[in-house]
């Protein structure tokens, strides 16, 4: 009998992935396209000359570290949820949310550092692009923080556990993506400024 049930599980294979998770991946594709087009625009524009040269704020190194740490803590929370270790899950979610906010604040300070260097949003496109990259990324990150907080709240309501991980998994995917996106942008800027 068990075998028969197995078969039916397999027959449902066309539904290979949770539709919402799949939709999230497609959304990630659109975000990738936005940043791919903006960074290409950056390269195209840079190659035309008349480009302001300036040093990147060193705070970017710290924020990059923070976002990597937040990804690690979120993953720890995720593994805890898988093991139904709800206490660690909550601690992990709280740490992640705090680190996320710290990242956002750090990005704000990077803008202050840029203004100190007399690199403004209005002016040479070299600076404008930097503000657009960080600003648009921060905007997406805010949506990620909202997502984190939703999961955080549901973790306190006992809604995240090994049998109910879909929302958490989507949150983890999105957050890792946003972290990776920032690392890409930072590397890109290091190599092309």
């Amino acid at each position: 009998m068990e075998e028969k049930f197995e078969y039916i599980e397999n027959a449902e294979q066309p539904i290979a992935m949770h539709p919402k998770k799949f939709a999230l991946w497609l959304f990630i594709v659109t975000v990738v396209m936005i940043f791919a087009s903006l960074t290409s625009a950056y390269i195209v524009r840079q190659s035309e000359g008349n480009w302001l040269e300036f040093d990147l704020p060193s705070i970017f190194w710290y924020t990059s570290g923070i976002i990597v740490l937040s990804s690690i803590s979120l993953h720890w929370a995720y593994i805890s949820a898988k093991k139904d270790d709800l206490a660690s899950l909550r601690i992990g979610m709280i740490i992640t949310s705090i680190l996320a906010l710290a990242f956002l604040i750090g990005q704000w300070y990077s803008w202050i550092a840029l203004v100190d260097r007399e690199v403004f949003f209005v002016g040479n496109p070299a600076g404008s692009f930097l503000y657009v990259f960080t600003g648009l990324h921060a905007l997406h990150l805010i949506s990620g923080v909202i997502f984190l907080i939703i999961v955080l709240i549901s973790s306190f309501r006992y809604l995240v556990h090994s049998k109910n991980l879909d929302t958490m998994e989507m949150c983890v995917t999105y957050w890792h993506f946003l972290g990776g996106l920032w690392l890409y942008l930072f590397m890109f800027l290091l190599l092309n400024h």
Partner: protein
Amino acid sequence: MATAHTATHSASAHDHHDDHEHHDNFITKYIFTTDHKMIGKQFLVTGIFWAIIGGLLSIIFRLQLGFPDMELYWLKPLLGGWIDDAGKLDPNFYLALVTMHGTIMVFFVLTAGLSGTFSNFLIPLQIGARDMASGFMNMLSYWFFFLSGVIMFISLFIETGPASGGWVVYPPLSALEQAMPGSGLGMTMWLIAMTFFIASSLLGGINYITTVINLRTKGMSFSRLPLTIWAFFLTAVIGLLSFPVLFSAALLLVFDRSFGTSFYLSDIYIGGEALPNTGGSPVLYQHLFWFLGHPEVYIVLLPALGITSEIISVNSRKPIFGYKAMIISMLGITILSFIVWAHHMFVSGMNPFLGSIFMFLTLIIAIPSAVKVFNYLTTLWRGNLIFTPGMLFSIGLVSFFISGGLTGIFLGNSAIDIQLHDTYFVVAHFHLVMGSASFFGLMAGVYHWFPKMFGRMMDARLGYIHFWLTFIGVYMVFFPMHYIGIAGFPRRYYSWTNFEFSNMYTDLNMFVSVAAIITFGAQLIFLFNFFYSMYRGRIASLNPWRANTLEWTTPLHPKHGNWPGEIPTVYRWPYDYSKPGAAEDFIPQTVPLSATPESNLPHEEELVKLEKAIIADEEDVLVANESKES
């Protein structure tokens, strides 16, 4: 979960669905609906509304082009200050008219009205799903589109007029308010409207792709998908990859316009005064825009080609010729569409060597396009043709695709493009191959699936009149434009008849304008037919075209959930028409191979054994579950 769902299909899951149906009130059924069929109809009706507006705008500027001396006082009640005291159309408003005509037709009619209607309506019905992956997102997609339309509509009536920089809104013309009246508030509203439109397209596209990949019924493998679904799927993929880039382009334009940045602006003098903007590059905008702009052409065209494949096959009573070749050529078009954008920029100061590369890539698109045309013609060849209105419009599409596609080979050559760019030759080219072809695909789809949408038939005789007037009318309008264009008559000019070489074309322009008005008038026949048939048309039979695809296995008025019982299982591809040995000239996808031993091919006999094993297995499980429950 999965076990329970499969085993108790008809018992619990679907009664539940019917329960929902009773709670629908007017608002949840017709306005904030999450039913993909109703959302599809919403897109269709909104698209028709915009098509009328877009058509009317074109009639107004055709009057100016065909009859430059005409007094237009009679338009004063509608256009007010845009008709000056001498009864002439304001030149600025002329530019606004062509801009809005382009924007409305490309985005609101042929993207939302075509892809939005048929992707929504047909994807779940043809793949055997109860609804889209996310009904809520689908609803949001329509309402973002609606909001975008409202903003664009209001911009038509503001004092400085709507956006006027052409549908491509190139900066610096669109970026500087001083450039023209339309670059003020009208342009801002254009950008806001387009942002909502992009959001709407992306929400729709994510849904279409997710649905096609995840929610196909049992047996509906990718190699059994109707070509319509393949087309909608690839269209959504193109949209997903290209619309974000338009968003980037628009975002930077917004910053330039409203925040004073210099992404696209540099070294501009107005009235002898230099603007503060330095370091921008207007060509950058063109790259970003055309990275969407060219794929957009295929976003518009592919759904029409998919619809045509289905309708031509059904009404030729023959399997589509080269099913796999059709899919491969659509895939080819999808990929190529992303690497040819710079052929719109041959004369923008691009490196000529780069131009040669883009020319080469562009001309490659002729191959998959020709494969598709060949397959349409070979499907028609010696078929038992049934000339329904849908079939006529599909054949019309093939005609336009050929005649408009040929001129594409001219324009794709960077050397010839120096003479032809921005002339009426270009206008003729894209109106035939993209505008009219896609419009005919839309019409074909409406005539063909009207019975499924509204449970009634459209009047065929009015359909024939509509077809012939439109078909001949389109050629009368756009064929002469080739001559005008080769002669060097540039597009987007308010008046070009004051020159010696061009004033001899006044007659031809007049002819085009008259033809355009007649063609537009012919659409009123369609409008009457559409709305009359919705309420008074002949009640349709369940499968009026004797087609194979799944949507014709639903009830006449499918409820939310589409099938009252279990979702049908699919056993074969959708093009078993006139199969040798079969009793009827069509075998629906739901008929198992084991039920048609008389017509099975040798390799299908192999599949029959597999099929029997699967069916036996399933019955075992059902019996087992029932005994367990009791």
